[in-house]
């Protein structure tokens, strides 16, 4: 028996969400008295034995070049076969863009119940019950899985990575890999920017900033914090900022440690994309702005005065 954790990577490096999944999976293994094993598809440059730090005993790799691009159909077959080979009773996948493409397929192949968007460890005291976010972060559901094999896809940023000591045994798995049916013809990554869904800190601007020419103060703050930038829907619609920055119910859903909202009113559809953030800071000149109700910290004031001061104060703090 084992808990098998799917490890995702990009440009040779293992993704942050996968470290969370490894820590989470290792904890489930401990809880259920089994061992945690990791599965890596394709080529990576990181040291795989070092994944032992997160509590996995073994790392299986299927080092086949055609796995360097995601074809959900091909991936699912390989993951399901690896899960069966390692006797996995639980498969953990991150609920990221990649995870969303494959988790459902893997679950079907294994005839396993799936909890997608899990946010806490399963309760195994009476059955197998996993907590997940529902209603776009406005509530949680406790979902019971009744099948012998279980698949969990874990929300990024909802389980803290713990790195300890240890090395894992790395071995190559020989699994036949089908020819992909999906041909990737172009990959456009916004280089140099921190991907919004992976960022620990997000600095976001709304219509209160009045126009694209005023974004400098926000970008300075983001740079100082090493944060990703985001915006409200009207800002994206007006092309003040690129579309992929729009967060909310109809845009990207984020759950960083810190979300700083500047000149955003806090409409319910906006909150739906950000209310899983750990700490929310709101800067708005209107004390009645609904966002303050969802915030942990706030400043009622003019963004054009407050934001540059904030950047300065952070610089000062760092200099100390």
């Amino acid at each position, binding site marked *: 028996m084992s808990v098998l954790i799917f490890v995702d990577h990009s440009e040779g490096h293992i993704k942050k969400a996968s470290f969370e999944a490894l820590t989470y999976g290792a904890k489930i293994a401990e809880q259920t008295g089994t061992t945690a094993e990791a599965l890596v598809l394709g080529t990576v440059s990181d040291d795989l034995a070092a994944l032992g730090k997160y509590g996995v005993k073994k790392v299986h790799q299927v080092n086949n070049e055609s796995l360097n691009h995601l074809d959900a159909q091909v991936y699912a077959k390989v993951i399901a076969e690896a899960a069966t080979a390692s006797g996995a009773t639980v498969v953990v996948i991150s609920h990221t863009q990649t995870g969303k493409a494959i988790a459902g397929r893997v679950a079907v192949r294994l005839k396993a119940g799936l*909890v*997608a968007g899990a946010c806490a460890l399963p309760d195994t005291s009476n059955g197998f019950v996993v907590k997940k976010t529902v209603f776009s972060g406005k509530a949680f559901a406790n979902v*019971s899985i009744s099948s012998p094999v279980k698949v969990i896809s874990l929300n990024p940023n909802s389980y803290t990575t713990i790195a300890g000591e240890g090395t894992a045994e790395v071995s190559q798995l020989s699994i036949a890999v089908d020819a992909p049916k*999906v041909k990737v013809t172009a990959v456009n990554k916004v280089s140099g920017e921190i*991907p919004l869904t992976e960022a620990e800190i997000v600095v976001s601007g709304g219509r209160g900033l009045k126009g694209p020419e005023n974004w400098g103060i926000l970008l300075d703050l983001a740079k100082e914090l090493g944060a990703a930038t985001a915006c409200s829907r009207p800002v994206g619609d007006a092309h003040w900022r690129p579309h992929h920055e729009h967060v909310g119910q109809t845009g990207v859903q984020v759950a960083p440690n810190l979300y700083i909202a500047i000149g955003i009113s806090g409409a319910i559809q906006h909150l739906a994309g950000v209310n899983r953030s750990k700490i929310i*800071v709101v800067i708005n000149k209107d004390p009645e702005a609904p966002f303050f109700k969802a915030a942990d*910290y706030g400043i009622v004031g003019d963004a054009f005065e407050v934001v540059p001061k904030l950047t300065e104060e952070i610089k000062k703090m760092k200099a100390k």
Partner: protein
Amino acid sequence: MKILVCVSKTPDTTSKIAFTDGNSKFDENGVQWIINPYDEWYSLVRAIELKEKDPATTVHLVTVGGADAEPIIRKALALGGDEAIRVNADGSDSYFIASQIAAIAKDGYDLVFTGKETIDYNGSSIGAMVAELLDVPYISLATKFELNGTTATVTREIEGGEEVAELALPAVVSCQKGVAEQRIPNMRGIMAARTKPLKVVEPAATDTLTSIVSFELPPAKAGVKLVSPDNVGELVRLLHEEAKAI
């Protein structure tokens, strides 16, 4: 070209989220039901656009739900689409729902569209399951969808960017912002929808692998701590020392 569009019914985003029966059921009191926005705005509209370009294309809608889902199906039909199928079953297990959709999709559909996710259950997984049950390719989180004969060119969201892929149909695609622009049903559409066929079929025998035991609301926020705009340094101190967020 035969297209199947999956539509589901969800509470309007502004609905109050509350639970009854010892937190085991969603409180439907006063809730306004809508078509899941990703289904309505993106996948359905794109399917209709494909039909407008090629009159030989048919667009069918499928929903797995009780009779109370009919008003939203009629609204979806008012936007376009030729006919609808309702699988008469309630349930939240994705495997069960996907199996029902796959059973219908086996009937010669070239393309199955789903939304990116339901805004109530947030699984983002039904499309992947349907694709696996049909053993066809799946493109998740599409932001563009073009068709040339039976070859599709799809742009999809990946971590930190986008990827363009080509594939031969049949396939399942989950749609989000970018695929199409929201439309509003017009009077003609609404009138036409009244007489479009809405078939009700009984569910195929399938297992249910998960069930919701209970719901919880997040703990209430302690309330916002306000800092004076003349003392921004205090906010930085709080974020550093108290919240440990920077």
